[in-house]
């Protein structure tokens, strides 16, 4: 398991854009399960939407992408410290809204990983319910 201190050693993102709080499972290069705790205190809920707080789908994608970086980093081709990551394409379907109090659990599995890029399968779930699922591809560039 990785806690926030371990996570910030891997991810270049920082507040207010750290979208995973903990990594529950990590099988290097094979599987990552990460968690984002969704609190009513999140700033975006005040505008998305007033009186009807729903986590923006783009932020669910961001959480998936960050979990995917953990998977990429954990592979044998561990990234350099100052690596930057760029999303290439996103194909994600949203199945149920994510609301305050939910614990968004993200599972990432590789479809194709090469030294400087990856395509992964991403699934977001709250409890037993799948809330988002799809594919994300991204590139890694050493700074």
């Amino acid at each position, binding site marked *: 398991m990785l806690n926030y201190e371990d996570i910030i050693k891997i991810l270049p993102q920082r507040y207010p854009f750290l979208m995973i709080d903990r990594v529950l499972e990590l099988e290097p290069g094979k599987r990552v399960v990460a968690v984002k705790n969704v609190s009513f205190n999140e700033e975006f809920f005040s505008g998305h939407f007033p009186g009807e707080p729903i986590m923006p789908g783009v932020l669910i994608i961001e959480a998936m992408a960050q979990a995917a970086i953990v998977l990429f980093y954990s592979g044998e081709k561990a990234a350099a410290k100052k690596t930057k990551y760029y999303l*290439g*394409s996103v194909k994600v379907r949203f199945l149920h809204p994510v609301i305050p109090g939910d614990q968004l659990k993200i599972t990432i599995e590789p*479809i*194709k990983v*090469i*030294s400087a*890029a990856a*395509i992964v399968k991403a699934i977001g779930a709250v409890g037993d319910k799948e809330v988002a699922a799809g594919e994300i*591809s*991204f*590139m890694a560039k050493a700074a």
Partner: protein
Amino acid sequence: MMQDIENDIRNLVAEIIEKDPSEIKSDARFVEDLGVDSMMALEILAGVEKKYKIAIPEEKLADFKTLDSIVVIAREYLSKNA
């Protein structure tokens, strides 16, 4: 069979780069003529691997220059599997 592979890969490429299959001539240059970038090339490689259940090494990505070149590579790895 030879023709099938070419057509199947053309359709696969067309879907990934969001063009009509008819635009993808067998010798059209991916980067210069069709605007394919490295991320799309990787998606094409992953798509070909999945479709034919083959593994194409990363180094071959640089040879993904035209539809023709992918067909040649796909056949090479298909025959290795056979």
